[in-house]
C-alpha cells in the first residue's frame, strides 16, 4: 500500500493530464494517487469515471490550490487509507 504523490503545478497543459494518466496505470492494489494541481482538472473526471476510478478533490491551501486523491473503484484498502488521512 502506498501513496503516490504527483506534483503537476508547474506543468503546462497537456502534461499534467498526461502524467496523471500514465501514473494511474502503475497503481497496485492498495495504492492511491495524490495529485497537487494549480487548477481543477475537469477533463480528467470523465476519463476517471469511464475507466473505473474514484476521486476526491480538496482545496484547503493557497500554495496547493487543488489536491486530488484518486483510487481504483473497487480498492477498499486505498479508499480506507485516504479516509484515514
Amino acid at each position, binding site marked *: 500500500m502506498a501513496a503516490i504523490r504527483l506534483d503537476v*503545478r*508547474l*506543468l*503546462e*497543459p*497537456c502534461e499534467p*493530464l*498526461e502524467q496523471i*494518466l500514465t501514473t494511474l496505470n502503475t497503481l497496485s492494489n492498495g495504492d492511491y494517487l495524490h495529485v497537487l494541481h*494549480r*487548477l*481543477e482538472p*475537469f*477533463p480528467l*473526471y*470523465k*476519463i476517471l*469515471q*469511464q*475507466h473505473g476510478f474514484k476521486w*476526491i*478533490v*480538496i*482545496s*484547503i491551501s493557497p500554495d496547493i*490550490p487543488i489536491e486530488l486523491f484518486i483510487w481504483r473503484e473497487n480498492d477498499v484498502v486505498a479508499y480506507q487509507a*485516504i*479516509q484515514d*488521512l
Partner: protein
Amino acid sequence: MNTVQLSLQQTPSLDVPLRFFLTAPIFAMLAMLLWLIKGETLFINRWSADVLAFTHFFTLGWMLQIMSGALLQLLPVLLGVTFFKSKLWSTLIHTSLTLGTLFLTGGWLFELKILLQISYLFLLFGSIILVSILSFGLLKSQNTSPILISIRLALIALIITLGLGFILLTLFAFSVHISNPIYITKLHITWGLIGWTLLLIVGIAYQVVPMFQITPPYPHYFSRSFAPFLFGILISWTVGIPLDVMLIFLTTSFAIVTLDIQSKRLRKLPDITLSFWRFGMLSLIANALFYLTGYVWDFPQRELFQSVLFIGGFILPVIQGMLYKIVPFLVWLHLTNAQMDLTKKIKVPHMKQIIVDKWQRWQFWLFLIFFFIALISIIFPNYFAYLAAFLGLSAFAFLEYNLMRATQLYLNIRNQINRIQKD
C-alpha cells in the same frame, strides 16, 4: 476531509467547437477580400454599406463564431458547466450564424433588401438558440467563480448588443423608422466591443492565462471586482453619465494586470499565445494613450485608427492566441480519451506537436506586419490599402491552414483508433 461536490460533465464532441473555429477565419478572409476589391475607397465613409459589411464579417463572422464555439466547448471542459444536446444546438447555431452573416453582408454589399430580411430571420433564430442555451447552462451552474461572473455579465451584454443590432436591422431591412439610429449604433458598438467581447475575453483570461501560460492567478481583488465594475460603468454610460475615461482606465487596467502576471510566469518558456496576448495588451494600452492624447491633439482618422487598434490590435490577436492553445488542447484531449480503452495504444502527439510551432510563429509575424501596415493605411490609404488587405488575407489564410492541419491530424489518428476498435 473537506470534499468538493462535483458534477460529471459530458464533453461535447470535437466537431462542436471546430466548425466555429474553422469558419471564422474564412469570414476574416472575406473581409480582407472586400478590402482588396474596394482598396483605398473602403473607409472613406464609415457609415457606408461596405464598411458595415466589413465590420460584421469580423464581429459576427469572426468574433461571435469563435466565442460561441469556445463557450460551448470550454465551459463543459474547463468549468464543468453542462449543456443539454450541445451537438444539435451548436449545429443550428453555427448554420444560422453563418448563413445570417452571409445574407447580412451580402444584403449590404449588393444593396438587396431581401437578403437583409432573410438575414434577420437566420440571425434571430441563431441568436435566440445561442443565448438560450448559454443562459440555461450558466444559470444552472452553481459555480460563483469570477470567471463565471464575468461570462454571465458578458452574456447579458451580448443580449443587449444583439437587441440593439436587431432594432438597427429593422431600419435597413424593413425601412422601419427608428428614432436616433446614430445613438443606438453607438450603444450597439460599445456594448458589443466593451461589454460582450471584452468581458468574455476577461472571463476566459482568468482561466486560460494561468492555465496555459503558467502564471500566478489574477489578483483576487481584480478578478472579483473588474467585471461587475465595468458592467456598472457601461450601464451608467448608457444612461448618459459621461464615464468614457473610466471605461478607458478599466480596459487599460486589465492589460496592465495581465502583463504583470505574465511577467511572473512560473516557467519562462517561449510561447506563441503569450506573444499574441502581450501584443494584444500593448495595443489596448496604446489605444488608451491615443484616446487620452485626443484631448490635446486630433487628426481626422482618429476614430478609425482607434478601431483598428482595438479590434485589429487587441481582439484579433488575443483570439488567435487562444485558438492556438484551445484547438491543440482539445485535439489532444479527445484523442487521449478515445484511445484510453485500447489495449494496443496509439501514440497521441503532444499538444505542442499538433500545430507546428514554426508555422504558428510565422503566422504571428505575418499578422503583425499586416496590423502595422493596416494602421499606416488608415493615414495613407492611397499607398497602403491594397498591401494591407493582401497581407491580412494571407495572415488569415495561414491561420485557417494551421487549424485545418490540426483537424486533419485529429481525423487521421481518430481513423486509426476506429480501425483498431473494429479489429
